[in-house]
């Protein structure tokens, strides 16, 4: 069940990244939603979960982009392992500490992505420091929203179920 949830989250993040970027133009395109999912999954599941989630997210991102297949996958799988190992070693319990990990993860993603392209002598994308920082900030914001949603959904679901139960009891009493 957990695996299905993680796969669904990755697929949805890539799909939303690609479709919403069209609606919101370039500002949204600078967010890396799959990276946020990788970091959050690695923090909660450890290095092995981070590795697989990173591999899947990167692979799907590569498939849906104009670049070489495997470059994002390599970068994101290494980020997943690193964040997972850091989470188990340094015990990031506070939400803010967890979210701030997205900043070095974003920088690591850019360095690995551009580094691989430079290494294989393909036309490497130009790196703009301001853009990277902007992406890091937007990723942290997306992570904040993501954590908020993931915390609210179970309580909303249980509240809905409780309300349904109360309504059913009321109906039963009136009958």
């Amino acid at each position, binding site marked *: 069940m957990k695996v299905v949830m993680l796969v669904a989250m990755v697929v949805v993040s890539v799909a939303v990244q*690609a479709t919403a*970027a069209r609606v919101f133009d370039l500002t949204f395109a600078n967010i890396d939603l799959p990276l946020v999912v990788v970091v959050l999954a690695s923090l909660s599941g450890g*290095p092995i979960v981070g590795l697989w989630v990173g591999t899947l997210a990167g692979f799907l*991102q*590569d*498939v849906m982009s*104009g*670049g070489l*297949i495997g470059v994002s996958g390599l970068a994101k*799988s290494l980020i997943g392992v690193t964040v997972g190992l850091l989470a188990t070693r340094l015990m990031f319990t506070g939400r803010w500490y967890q979210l701030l990990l997205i900043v070095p993860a974003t920088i690591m993603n850019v360095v690995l992505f551009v580094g691989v392209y430079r290494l294989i002598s393909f036309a490497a994308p130009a790196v703009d420091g301001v853009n990277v920082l902007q992406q890091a900030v937007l990723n942290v914001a997306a992570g904040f929203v993501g954590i908020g949603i993931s915390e609210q959904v179970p309580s909303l679901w249980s509240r809905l179920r409780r309300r349904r139960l109360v309504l059913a009891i009321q109906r039963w009493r009136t009958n």
Partner: protein
Amino acid sequence: MFKRRQRIGYLVLAVVLGHVILISAQVNVRQEGNFLQVVSFSALAGIEEIISYGTNAVGTAWSRYVSLRDAEEENAVLRESIDQLELRLQQQNALARRARSLQRLLELRNSVELLTLSAQVIAVDATPWFRTFTVDRGTGDGVRQDLAVIAPSGVVGRVVGTPGPRAAKVQLLIDRNAAAGALIERTRAAGVVTGVDGQSLLRMDYVSNLEDVQIDDAVVTSGTDGIYPKGFVIGTVADVRRGDDLYKSILVAPVVEFGNLEDVLIVLHDDRFAQAEENE
């Protein structure tokens, strides 16, 4: 504990090796599309299509039912603009008739018959590094690699990678890896237009310093690349300088607004290319 660490190490090594092999395979044979890539692309494109239709439906509902407050005033303005456009259309038709008769008379070039297919943009690139988008047409509609993609205003790009049955990836002309054979329409000076990384402008290379190029000159496709049909508008010259070597440094502002593209045309067939292929 040691075993767990060892397991993670082996796993990381295996995954990294797998990625390196995958990347190396593509660096050697970039043109071939593998099965896994095509299947994943098609599956994800399907999901994106559903999400795209969802967002479009919400947008349509909003524009049709919610934001109708200024419809009457807008209607009057639109009627007026239709009248003006009809007048302009008549003028254009007259010009076109004249141009056609002149063309026939002088036999300057063959008539170009383009078979096109309309397609809807369903997603853009999933990374901020490349300028590509996904359209809802694929091999099932006759789409294949390297077909030109155009919009009513001008050239958009070309189909890259192996298309899925119902989706294809389009590389925009502003992508840093994109290029097209081009001409300065006024002087017929030939060159190559390429995308510039991180910019919305294009660069036109290999135009001699001896050529006459001015700002606002129209840049059109030359048709020499075998992808884009000849004579389609790419943009206008935004900046031109004498280069240090043999060639001018030219920046071109594209006519197509790539951020607002919703529908495009895929050029399935160009008579001249077909003739050239037959001759070969």
